[in-house]
């Protein structure tokens, strides 16, 4: 059934179709519609779940971990300050191998107070051991929530499904909402190998000596390394059932591209418009949209970028004292791979400053006119 819905409601419908059993959440702009709709679904019985209306995001994640450990499929959604308040428990989720799925609306970190989009909230959770999906359309948000449960529950690693504040969270698009029966077929009920139950009294997460801790982390990484294949496999299965492929990255006209714009989030789709415009001007441009950031899709990125003459990574985030975060990661993925083409790191759109097709054209013109970047970071649109 096709419906015109906002990005936030895509998260809610995704959780409903996945039959989330426990939801614990706390409101934050611009996430509120996610939990409002889920509250209604729980209240009218269309979603048979327990909704714990907690007093903070920290408690939201704590309750999710408890519920997941008890064996229930568990969902939450947050943004920005809320996500960073959860930080401690994000480590707990992955370390405890609890496959919680969470929607996160990318919103800039205060101060100053900002409710608009950038990626520093989720990217500063990079090392917490969560799978991170960056979405570019409402359809992709809904589909990815369903896929995320499938991937997380198989790998026993939690997932974050991420979308930009307002540019997607509050934007209405046509979304094909799958049939429940088909989703049920795609996503079987959650059956963890171990759970908290008096029938089998285990102690989870107790004091762990240096003799054991190291191996637990090794196992987490080894499982994380299998996740790219798992995403591609479950993405193909999704395509077979619903007609839409969900992969690690999206390659738009990169085949013969001399300049590849590397993007993520809503800017990923904006870049396509710029690519078409540039192509019309005779410039061979392409766009590599990063859908999955953790685990980092090394082989896909290397494969798509291997023929590029120039690469421009556009970051809506920054690691202060270093670079844009996607830029660092792409650069490190290409090191020693034989393609020593110039790599440009652009920063644009912090705090919700618009990223438009003209922004990308400005970026393309800069990259095409220089043999190499004039600075470690090329800032786009700074008004001083």
């Amino acid at each position, binding site marked *: 059934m096709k419906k015109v819905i906002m990005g936030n409601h895509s998260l809610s419908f995704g959780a409903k179709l996945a039959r989330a*059993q*426990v939801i*614990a959440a706390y409101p934050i702009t611009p996430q509120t519609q996610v939990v409002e709709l889920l509250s209604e679904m729980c209240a009218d019985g269309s979603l048979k*779940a*327990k909704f*714990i*209306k*907690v*007093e*903070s995001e*920290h*408690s*939201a994640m*704590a*309750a*999710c*971990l*408890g*519920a*997941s*450990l*008890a*064996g*229930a499929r*568990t969902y939450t959604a947050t943004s920005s300050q809320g996500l960073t308040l959860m930080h*401690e*428990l994000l480590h*707990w989720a992955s370390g405890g191998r609890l496959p919680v799925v969470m929607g996160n609306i990318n919103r800039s970190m205060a101060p100053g107070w900002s409710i608009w989009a950038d990626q520093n909230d989720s990217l500063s959770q990079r090392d917490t051991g969560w799978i991170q999906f960056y979405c570019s359309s409402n359809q992709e948000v809904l589909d990815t929530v369903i896929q995320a449960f499938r991937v997380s529950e198989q790998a026993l690693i939690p997932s974050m499904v991420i979308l930009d504040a307002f540019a997607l969270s509050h934007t209405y698009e046509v979304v094909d909402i799958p049939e429940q029966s088909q989703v049920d077929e795609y996503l079987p009920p959650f059956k963890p190998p171990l*759970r*908290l*139950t*008096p029938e*089998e*009294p*285990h*102690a*989870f*997460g*107790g*004091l*762990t*000596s240096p003799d*054991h801790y190291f191996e637990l982390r090794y196992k987490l990484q080894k499982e994380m390394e299998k996740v790219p294949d798992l995403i591609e496999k479950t993405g193909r299965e999704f395509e077979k059932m619903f007609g839409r492929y969900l992969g690690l990255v999206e390659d738009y006209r990169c085949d013969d591209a001399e300049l590849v714009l590397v993007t993520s989030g809503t800017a990923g789709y904006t870049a396509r418009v710029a690519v078409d415009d540039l192509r019309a001007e005779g410039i061979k441009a392409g766009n590599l949209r990063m859908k999955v950031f953790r685990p980092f899709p090394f082989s896909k990125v290397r494969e798509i970028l291997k023929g590029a003459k120039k690469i421009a990574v556009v970051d809506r985030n920054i690691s202060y004292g270093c670079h844009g975060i996607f830029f660092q990661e792409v650069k490190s993925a290409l090191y020693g791979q034989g393609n020593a083409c110039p790599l440009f790191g652009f920063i644009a759109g912090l705090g919700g400053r618009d990223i438009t097709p003209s922004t990308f054209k400005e970026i393309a013109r800069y990259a095409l006119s220089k043999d190499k970047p004039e600075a470690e970071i090329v800032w786009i649109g700074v008004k001083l």
Partner: protein
Amino acid sequence: MKKEKTMKLTLPEEELMHSGNLACQGCGATLAMRYALKALGQKTALCIPACCWSVIDGPFPYSTLDVPIFHCAFETAASSASGVKAGLEMVGDTETTVVAWGGDGGTFDIGIQALSGAAERDDDILYICYDNEAYMNTGIQRSSATPYGAWTTTTPVKHFKNRPKKDIDAIMAAHRIPYIATASIGYPEDVFKKVKKAKEIKGTRFLHIYAPCPTGWKSRPEDSIKLARMVVQNAIFPLYEIVNGETYTLSIKLSQKKPIADYLRLQGRFRHLKESDIQFMQDEVDRRWQSLLKKCGP
């Protein structure tokens, strides 16, 4: 001929806590767990935040308890328990009693937000705080449960704690939850009875168990039970129940309230106190006792 038993057990014999744990000698927290589990039985799930008990239970892969444990983050005993309860119910287990088991630091201080949240929602959990009156697991630092006058490593003798113990029971009563009780490991039958009673009630239940810590109090391990009885008899830690946040009932009436000085003298943490300090503390205990008696009625 079978000999008749001259002594009768007042608690069930079944043990869900075993020897081989990592507690210090004379640990009150250990006895609190032992008695509580006797009342709770096997169909129990524990959420234990950072506290002495996250060590006492034993290192991975060992556990001294016969019930499942979620070792959770410091400030999340209550919120984790709310999640566990919801999760268990969604997978068809409506019987298991979900217990948040935290120390005073995890309850009075860092976990009070989550506890208040769970209590306001009246989530169906039993919260048990074993109170040893400081951060003992990290090496005896003051918490808001540390009593006036006490030495800790962060309230040195020259600047001993000069604020009273936070009244957590009154805070919980203000949430109007169905059941609150104080208990002391010096009165095992009372602990047992209250845990049993709490287990049968739906909603948020809060139990506050006084648990001496010889290591942190600089008392003799063999005095733990004695101290846990004296503290009730001198009304520093009276035993009572609060139903629905309003109805107070004394569990142990005191025909003759003992002076606090003897209790203080058995603990190194109070050794520095002058007569005048002790008198000040005695007056405060008397005042609070009268106020409690008023709440309990005739």
